[in-house]
């Protein structure tokens, strides 16, 4: 199964009209890459390099100006039941209980109520949130809410998860716990994921591969395979000395540190 391509971007270019209406702005330029079955790939790059645009294209919410995206070998022409996304915001609905929030996607997709409830129950149990099923979102902490959002994403049983900085709004310690939850779940369910992040060590500890994007117009300038055991345990990976090497490599590639000198010279 490892050679099955779950998600593929083929020569994707995205141009936006600037709000003034006069100039066109190229957000993403000729991006091609693919993510294989069960693989976790991170996408890093400077702000505004079009990472989120790629995610929207993959989920079928926006159509690329040029090129195509494919999920399971099928061209993406609109929202697709095999893809689910999760954002930095938990997007929980305040009028729904935690269990009902987890059921949100499956319910929309027309899965019968008893099955929706069953899935919500087992997901909440696996995230140790069963006792909060009947609570409302405002009664939960930020980390718990984000875990509920992850459960909602998994409830639709997607082949591909698109994650846009899912943990950037929670504190550093909670983030590590959530990363562990995510890594274990992805591994256990054999899900394919594309993770957008600004956190370089998050990218290194969670992924099989890291793609580095350039400044706008965003293109992929580097691909780094993470050759470390334990992708299902980012906390153990953090103890691995190789993490620092990879992070240093990514920092160099992104020009972090060099940027200030360049600007100072200019």
């Amino acid at each position, binding site marked *: 199964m490892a050679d099955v391509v779950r998600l593929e971007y083929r020569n994707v270019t995205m141009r936006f009209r600037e709000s003034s209406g006069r100039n066109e702005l190229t957000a993403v330029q000729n991006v091609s890459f693919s993510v294989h079955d069960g693989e976790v790939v991170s996408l890093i790059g400077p702000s505004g390099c079009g990472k989120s645009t790629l995610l929207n294209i993959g989920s079928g919410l926006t159509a690329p100006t040029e090129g195509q995206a494919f999920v399971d070998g099928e061209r993406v022409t609109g929202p697709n039941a095999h893809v*689910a996304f999760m*954002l930095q915001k938990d997007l929980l*609905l305040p*009028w729904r209980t935690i269990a009902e929030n987890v059921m949100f996607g499956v319910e*929309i997709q027309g899965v019968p109520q008893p099955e929706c409830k069953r899935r919500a129950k087992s997901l909440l149990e696996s995230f140790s949130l069963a006792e909060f099923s009947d609570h409302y979102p*405002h009664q939960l902490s930020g980390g718990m809410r984000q875990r509920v959002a992850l459960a909602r994403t998994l409830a*639709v049983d997607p082949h591909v998860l698109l994650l846009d900085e899912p943990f950037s709004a929670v504190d550093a310690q909670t983030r590590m716990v959530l990363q562990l939850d995510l890594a274990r779940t992805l591994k256990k369910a054999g899900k394919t994921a594309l993770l957008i992040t600004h956190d370089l060590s998050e990218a290194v500890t969670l992924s099989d591969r890291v793609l580095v994007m350039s400044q706008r117009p965003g293109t992929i300038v580097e691909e780094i395979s993470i050759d470390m055991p334990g992708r299902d345990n980012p906390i153990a990976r953090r103890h691995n000395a190789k993490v620092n090497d990879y992070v240093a490599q990514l920092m160099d590639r992104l020009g972090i540190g060099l940027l200030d000198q360049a600007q100072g010279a200019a």
Partner: protein
Amino acid sequence: MNGAVSSSVRNGTAASIALLIVFLAAWQWGPGLLGIPTFIVPPLSMVATEFVHAFKFDHLLFHTGITVGEVLAGFIIGSLLGAFIGYALGMSPTAELALSPYILALQIAPKVAFAPLFILWMGFTVYPKILVAILIVFFPVMVNVLTAVRTVDPDLVNLARAFKATRSQIFWKIEFPTSMPPMFAGLRIGSTLAVVGVVVGELVGGNVGLGYLLTLGEGQADTPMVFVSIVMLTLVGGIAYLGVILIERRVLHYLPTRAVGNL
């Protein structure tokens, strides 16, 4: 913390009741002490006597019933209409753009000024009063619903879209529930405004309702009667407002209690 909250509630309630007693006492004995004639400010006991009298001989209950009916009809029709148009405009930016200058104009126009016109059109019936109430309730509800639909988090809509939600699913599962808290804020305002609309209609013309009793009392220089009518109108408005709050508490039960607010 719970104890602190409940003790502050207890203190507040005690102070409220104390204020009421002071007010009623001032009403009863204040005018006499200040030498204000009873036809200007009748003391509490006189108003109470008038209340019993009006109840027995002036069909107070009947007139109150008419006013309540008009308020209810105007409030229900006005808020349904406001909500409906609010959702429709919220979902169609073109329609909103086309209609917004007229909506604004109508919103600025003092709605009660339409009362004489409606009476010219429909005679001394209950309908012009209901119509004024509809018009006056319509705007706060419509504007709040429209704004709510317009400001729904686009990421929330995208989330639903990514799950392949249909347009009607997006409405019923996201836009409609999101609009509930602001809609209730509009309904609260509407419930008190409905009384204003109805009373103005009754003042302008007709021979039933509490507004009519007001003009009757005024014509006969029967100040206690005017006071009785004002008290009854306040009661009607208060009960309407309370009704909205009670429904709101049930519908918005999921909000943290502080967000629902007090009376």
